[in-house]
Each structure stands twice: as C-alpha cells, then as structure tokens.
C-alpha cells in the first residue's frame, strides 16, 4: 500500500439486462429484468489486489466492465481517485480509461492477429501520448521488460506466441499506458497451471514494482488465494461477503461462500478424504 485513500470507490452500482421471454411479452413490454449487478459497493486502495470470486452468471464480469464503462451501469457511483467515472465524457473518460486498464481472459481474441507485438504496444502508448513513446524501439523494449519478455518479441505476431506469452503481451499492452488500476477478468483461467503460476507471480511483481492496484476476477478460489489481499464473493449480482482473503477463506460467514469453498476440488488427498466423508 503506497498511499492512503481509496483509488477506486464503487457505491450502490446496479446494472439490469432485459430478458425477453417471448415475442408476446416483448410486445407487451412485460419482459422480466435480470439484475446482473445489484447494489454493489466496494473500494480498492492503491497497490491493493482485490479478488472477485463467484460462479458463472454471478455478475463478476459485468461488474468489471461497468467500472470502465464498457457496459454502461444503470445506477450508482464509480470514483477513480475522486473523479466521477460515470459523469466523465470524451477526453476525461479517455484519460480515466487510461488509468484503469483491462486484461481479458482470452488473449487469442483480445490481440489483433495482424499487428506485431511491438506495433500493438506502441499504438497503445501513442494513443495516450505516453512519455517515451516518440522513441518506438526503446518504449517497446521497456514495456516488454516489465512483463519479463525479451525485446526480440517485438517483431512477432500473436500466432507465433504460446498462450502464456500472449497473455503477457496483453498485460504489457495494458501497462504501456501507465495505469493505476488493472482489471484482470479471468486473465489466467485459460492457462495451464505451469504457466498460470508464472502469470500470477508477474501480477504480484507489477503490484510491488509499479504499485498498481488490481481487481482480479477469477472463478478459481485457489487462484485468488494465491494473489489477493482481499476477496469479494459475488452471487446473483450482489457481493455477499468481502474481507481479508485469509479471513474469508478460513472462516467464511456467508452460506454461498461456504458452499463455493466446500465444492472446491483440493489438489491433495486431504481434500479428497474430507469431501468423501
């Protein structure tokens, strides 16, 4: 934690999606609504890693996307470093989005297959007028170094990279614009454990070296256990429990959290015995 005060504050955030059950209901506008995010409040300090857990359909991804307004929230308040994200327009929104960058689950889909790694990183830097981006080669090299990739990667295209390398490039692209908050949406879920461990270690390095805060969305509780300072558990659009990772995982209060933890397959035999009792 490098400084006091909250970097990100979310208050009473809600997002509804219309569910159209049938044509008749649609015409009569009787369609039900699905509350994907329901009155969610939490905050995140500088340099803090907050894990966001929950089953599929619990609203984790919608919440993450609402924060940078990839999905427009219906109600509530989002403040980044005291600035109102929901009220921001154009230039101001663009600047706020520079300060909070997203890393997606699938680096195959989130990287442009026609661009070289270097061009991709440089474009991100130049769009946001980052200092140093005038000197392309040095800029790219420095950004690649942050994610422990060698400068020779710059000329490669995504298809020439392994899954783990691609995800490092996706992280590098986010870092190219000097964000203060990274929103990682299932960023390690598609990777083999051997590569996943390296990426998790990278996220911890970035927090220590650059002081970025990370909102780490993951459905695997063990992954959150390895990286997060605090964890928020979502169910049906609501945060049902939030607290220190150790406290929540060792003494869960909410029934849903307890059920999630109980269902988690343990990679050792202790868990097998416990679950078979």
């Amino acid at each position, binding site marked *: 934690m490098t400084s006091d005060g909250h970097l990100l504050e979310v208050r009473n955030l809600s997002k509804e999606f219309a569910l159209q059950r049938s044509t008749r209901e649609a015409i009569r506008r009787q369609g039900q609504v699905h509350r994907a995010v329901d009155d969610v409040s939490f905050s995140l300090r500088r340099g803090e*890693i907050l894990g966001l857990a929950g*089953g*599929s359909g619990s609203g984790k991804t919608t919440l993450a996307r609402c924060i940078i307004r990839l999905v427009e929230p219906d109600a509530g308040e989002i403040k980044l470093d005291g600035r109102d994200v929901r009220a921001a327009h154009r230039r101001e929104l663009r600047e706020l989005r520079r300060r909070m960058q997203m890393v997606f689950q699938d680096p195959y889909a989130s990287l442009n297959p026609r661009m070289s790694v270097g061009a991709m990183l440089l474009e991100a830097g130049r769009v946001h007028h980052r200092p140093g981006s005038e000197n392309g080669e040095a800029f790219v090299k420095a950004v690649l170094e942050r994610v*422990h*990739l*060698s400068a020779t990667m710059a000329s490669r295209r995504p298809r020439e990279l*392994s*899954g*783990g*390398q691609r995800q*490092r490039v996706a992280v590098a692209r986010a870092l190219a614009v000097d964000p203060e908050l990274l929103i990682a949406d299932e960023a390690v879920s598609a990777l*083999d*454990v*051997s*590569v*996943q*461990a*390296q990426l*998790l*270690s*990278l996220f*911890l*390095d970035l927090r220590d070296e650059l002081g970025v805060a990370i909102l780490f969305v993951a*459905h*695997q*509780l*063990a*992954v*959150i*256990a*390895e*990286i*997060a*300072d605090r*964890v928020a558990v979502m169910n049906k659009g609501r945060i049902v429990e939030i607290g*220190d*990772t*150790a*406290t*929540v*995982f*060792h003494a869960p209060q909410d029934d849903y959290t307890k*059920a*999630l*933890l109980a*269902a*988690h*397959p*343990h*990679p*050792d*035999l*202790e*868990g*097998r015995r416990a*679950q078979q009792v």
Partner: protein
Amino acid sequence: MSSLLEIENLRVDFGTRSQPLTAVKDVSLSVAAGEIVGLVGESGSGKSLTCRAVMRLIDQPGRIAAGTIAFEGRDVLAMSEKQLRDFRAHEAGMIYQDPFSSLNPVHRIGRQLAETLSVNLGLGRAQARERAIELLDGVGIPDPARRALSYPHELSGGMRQRVMIALATASEPRLLLADEPTTALDVTTQAQILDLLERLRADRGMAVLLVSHDFGVIARTCDRVAVMYGGHIVETADIATIYTAAEHPYTRALLQSVPELSSAGHPRRRGGIPGRPPELGEELAGCVFKPRCAFAEPDCAEVEMTLRAVGPAHESACPKRPLAAAASARVGAGAGAGTDAGAGGSGKAGPESVP
C-alpha cells in the same frame, strides 16, 4: 492382470507418411473394470488424442500409426465399421469438454436421448421415451419429464453435461471416456458431475478414463493417474503415491504449480515450469522434459523415454531419480501433502523470461 482396456505402444501421427509428426509416442496404459484412471498433463501433451484414439475418433490428417488397443481382449483397431459402431454404442461412451457443441441444437433433449436408445438398443418409440426420462432422472436432472422437452440452449452448462452423460451411458457401457468433462463448469457444478461419475462407477462398475489438466479434479476422483508430457506418459502410479512420492521431475513441478486455497493470506510466488512444452514435430534427443527440467544433466539427452518400475505399481520415465530419496523419506515419515518438501524442484524456477 485382466484389464478392461489395454493400450499398448500407441502412436498417433499427423503430417505425411514420409514426414510424420508424432503427437502420441509409444503410450501404454491400462484401465481395469470399475477403475477411474486419470490422464493429466499440460495442453498439447497428447492426453485428449490418447483418449480419442480408444474410440478411433482421430480426425484426418491424424492417424493411429502404431500400437494396439484392446477392449476385453478384442482389438479395437481391427474392428470393421459395423463392429466399431456396436463398440461405440454398447461398450464405450465418451463425453467432451463442451456439451453444447455435442448436442443437436434443433432437437429436444428427450428426443435425442430416445433416438440413441432406439438405434442402439432397438427400443420402440414409447419405450425409448420412457427410458429417456428414466435416464435423465438417473443423472440427477430435476423434473425429468418436463426437462425432456427442453432444447439444449434452455439448459445450463451443468445440466447439458448431465444430458451428455445420460447419452453416453444410455446403454450402460463398461467404459466411459471423459475428456475434460468439467473444465467448462463452475466448481459447484463440477463437484456434482464428479459425484455423478463416482456414483455410476459404484452402481454399475463402470470404468472411467478421465482426461483433465486439473489436479484438483484428478485428486478428487481417480484411483490411478498417468502423467503425460510431450506425447509420452512420464509417470504412472496410484493417486496417493503421485501426491506424496512423485518421482518424475515433471510431475513434481506440475504439482508445485497448482494454486492452493491454503495460500490465502500469504500471497506466494510459484515458479511454474520455465519454458514451453515441445511442439508437434519437434524431436528432442533423449528425455523430452530435459530443456525445462531443474535436474537436467548432459547425459539426459541419451535417456530412453520408457517407463521403468520404481516401486509397487509405480513407474517413471526418469532413470536419474533425483527425487527418489526425498520421496521415500517422506513416505517413511508418513508425511501427507507437503508441496514445499520438494523445494529443490523449483530451484531453477524463479521468475524467468520465457524463451
């Protein structure tokens, strides 16, 4: 030993005959009746191909280039089209990672099940419909009579996977091939599906070959595990031995990469495994794991990739046995799971640049 399924020296090739690219190399594996065997490894290790080879479902240009697959002593590779159809219909079932793409989206699930039953078992229409509902009930689908009228898109992922299991086990096969059956599912749903597989084993004595990259899933369900890397099985043992006394450096490194709930509160760095697995067509001299192995020695390039017995029902492809002493010490001390005990395995595995 009488095995239900006996795979011997299986080789699966891609590429041309003059320049074959070998994806599965000399794999031997057996599954006994009523046994749940796990096949674990990183993506690209050949575990899915091995599983699909049993059903002869290797798509062109892939082909089974060598080896034998025997089911109750009968040669699966020599079966005629008709015999193969019977084998797939009655004796072995298969479920996949993505149940949505395996179900026909324009037919109600009850009808799909009934069709399978009437083709495979020759049941009449009404009988097949009745049996379909029983099967849905058997895999834990609530209100099965009504659910039978649903289309696949109306079901959740877990429900779809149950329908797939009902389909694959409709004619009570003695072997179920499950290729990453829970990878696309939530942990709570995953637990239910794994329970279901165990129940089918307990009730019907069905054997399962479970392919997964998730050690959590393997630990929860399997009796025995085979670890695959670069197209080879590098270690095989019963589940307890793998967790407490894994011998092959790859198995140990993989186990040490698995995130654990108990880390909560003290974020930790695991090294993972540096480097990347060999690509298709990349021929390495000697041990395929040598470039990533923390214990590699120069003469590992001359090691032959064959399994050697290192203990009762425990085989490893690493003749150097760098972890053997530590492993037997831990067995002697009766130590349980202790992932730090083999810290030597991660000696080289700090945060490194990926080549």
